[in-house]
């Protein structure tokens, strides 16, 4: 199939999920006629009806809370949170209820709920529209947290998330929504890489770059430039933030002996902290340098005219790579 944008790939994946199981329901603000502010659910209400693609009242806790009830009744809700910054009114329902119900009921109550969140900055938006809150979910036991970085993954991962009997917080790289890639939409889902596997997206021998979501492209761009300078970066798309595929990651770091993590979220207690801590623990004798972390600064996300300096870019990645190589 010709190049498909990520937003469109998600749309196709959701359509497949709706077709595959009549219990799948899409719900959220403006997901119906409008098709979502990013058009990810475009056309789905028209084809599947208002009962299956449901505009909700403007209340995020209500969305997740009723999705939990629907899941208890046997449905598989896929909730859209309009922007990263607007998930917090639902945080209690996600953390205290959605994440815990399976455990609390000793496995009797399944929670096959997907919470889709477009995340990250770089689109020149006003405040609360550019946040990267993934660490605030990844720390919560009972949730699964994933981030897609390209159209092929978007298409399969969203279907895998809907098929999961566990709650999945599904981060979509907002600023890459319109980036295109080719993939085979007819490849059987069962053949796809598992949802929780990391993937080496560019092999290299000198240093491992761990990243996910919108920064995968940035890391790949950096790898190209580095290659010109003679440094081979191995870029790993972590993909799943809870659980993390340590085997793939540590295998890479043991080979390269160096590691840099990259995400948009604030470095302080970001996912990079866990990556750095555990990689160091597991690969201690292989590391030539400490794991270095690239990410947002310890301030709130700034006004958009400054965001390009807040967000890691190719140069910040390369700067960290250079520092690591200098050890």
């Amino acid at each position, binding site marked *: 199939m010709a190049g498909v944008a990520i937003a469109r790939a998600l749309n196709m994946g959701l359509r497949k999920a709706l077709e595959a199981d009549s219990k799948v329901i899409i719900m959220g603000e403006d997901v119906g006629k409008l098709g979502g502010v990013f058009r990810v659910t475009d056309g789905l209400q028209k084809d599947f009806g208002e*009962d299956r693609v449901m505009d*909700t*009242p403007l*209340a995020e*806790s*209500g969305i*997740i*809370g*009723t*999705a*939990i*009830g*629907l*899941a*208890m*009744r*046997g*449905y598989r809700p896929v909730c859209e949170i309009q922007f990263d910054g607007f998930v917090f*009114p639902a945080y*209690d*329902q996600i953390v*205290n*209820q959605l994440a815990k*119900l*399976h*455990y*609390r*009921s*000793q*496995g*009797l*109550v*399944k*929670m096959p709920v997907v919470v889709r969140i477009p995340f990250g900055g770089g689109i020149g938006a006003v405040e609360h529209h550019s946040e990267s809150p993934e660490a605030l979910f990844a720390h919560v*036991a*009972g949730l*699964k947290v994933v981030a897609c970085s390209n159209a092929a993954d978007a298409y399969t991962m969203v279907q895998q998330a809907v098929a*999961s*009997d*566990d709650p999945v917080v599904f981060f979509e790289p907002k600023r890459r929504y319109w980036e295109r890639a080719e993939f085979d939409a007819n490849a059987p889902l069962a053949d796809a890489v598992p949802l*929780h596997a990391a993937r080496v997206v560019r092999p290299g021998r000198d240093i491992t770059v761990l990243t996910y979501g919108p920064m995968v492209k940035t890391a790949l761009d950096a790898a190209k430039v580095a290659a010109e300078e003679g440094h081979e970066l191995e870029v790993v798309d972590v993909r799943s933030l*809870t*659980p*993390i*595929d*340590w085997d793939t990651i540590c295998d890479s770091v043991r080979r390269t002996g160096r590691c840099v993590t990259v995400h948009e979220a604030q470095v302080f207690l970001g996912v990079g902290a866990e990556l750095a801590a555990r990689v160091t623990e597991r690969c201690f004798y292989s590391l030539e340098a400490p794991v270095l972390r690239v990410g947002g600064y310890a301030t709130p996300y700034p006004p958009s005219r400054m965001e390009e300096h807040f967000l890691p870019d190719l140069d910040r990645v390369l700067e960290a790579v250079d520092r690591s190589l200098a050890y």
Partner: protein
Amino acid sequence: MVAVSSMDVATSSEFVQLLTPEGQRLENPEYPLEITPEEVRALYRDLALVRRFDVEATALQRQGELGIWAQLLGQEAAQIGSGRALAPGDMVFPTYREHGVAWCRGIPPEKLLELFRGVNFGGWDPGRHNFSLYTIVIGAQTLHATGYAMGMQRDGAEDAVIVYFGDGASSEGDVNEAFIFAASYNAPVVFFLQNNQWAISVPEERQSRIPLFQRAHGFGFPGVRVDGNDVLACLAVTRKALQHAREGQGPFLIEAFTYRMGAHTTSDDPTRYRLASELETWKLRDPIERVKAYLSRGGFADSSFFDSVESEGDELAARVRAACLSMPEPKPIDIFDQPYAGGSPLVDEERATFEHYQAGFAEEGGR
């Protein structure tokens, strides 16, 4: 002209009552109730047994067998009246205090102790009893109930949902969002607010300056206040509300006006914040006494009936106590049991480490 405040209604202290504190039967044309003496006796039995159970659980807590206990004392009529109005297919979402409703759903009372003893988070299968797990985060379950009702609607089921919450809970955003979703989708859900007048130490007036049943009117569905200490009224009003929901008329709010005669939980000390005299007043409105009076006065039951219920209560208490004392202790390794339906490599790894650690520790015999 514009519509103005419904303050006039606000000062009404009336409620639906079908049985006075003195045990006199009243009729209410809106809430007709035909009930046989046998059925009233059955209700009496329910009331007395759940109270006896509650007393025993409280004692078990005092004796250190439970970590904490949330007593239902005083709220038996609200729970049995509403619980007995339910059909088998109806789904219940309780708080942490709905032991009487659990009783009506056929959950063995000893199962309720497991959470409070700390061996699990709820010892019953919600699907089997159509009775969800207890929810401790105030108000959260009202949204689950609404979502579940939306699911029933999609299934074309002729059932309804009932969800319990307190006067304090009515202030949580979630409860109000539940009203909004339920109204918006016309979901078949009955909101059953047990107004026991206290949220721990905070009196009802801090939550609302008008009677709470009126909250519903602002969301566009009916709200009714019922005498929460009158089992017949609670039965009749809940039946009607469930009917309303089943018939596709959407949500309904029942405010059962009652009183928490005990402490908030066994950890609480109500003498710090309320007068003993308040309790004395409410003792006169005891939910069980009035049924006894009705049955006795009408000659529907004699002392042998009451005696038999009492001894049944004592047997229940003994059984519950024995079950509590012989409750199996969870194994430490159970910590790792089922955080995920699909498993998690990290949990598996930690489980293995833990097993290894425990084994090594056992060998060493500890430090």
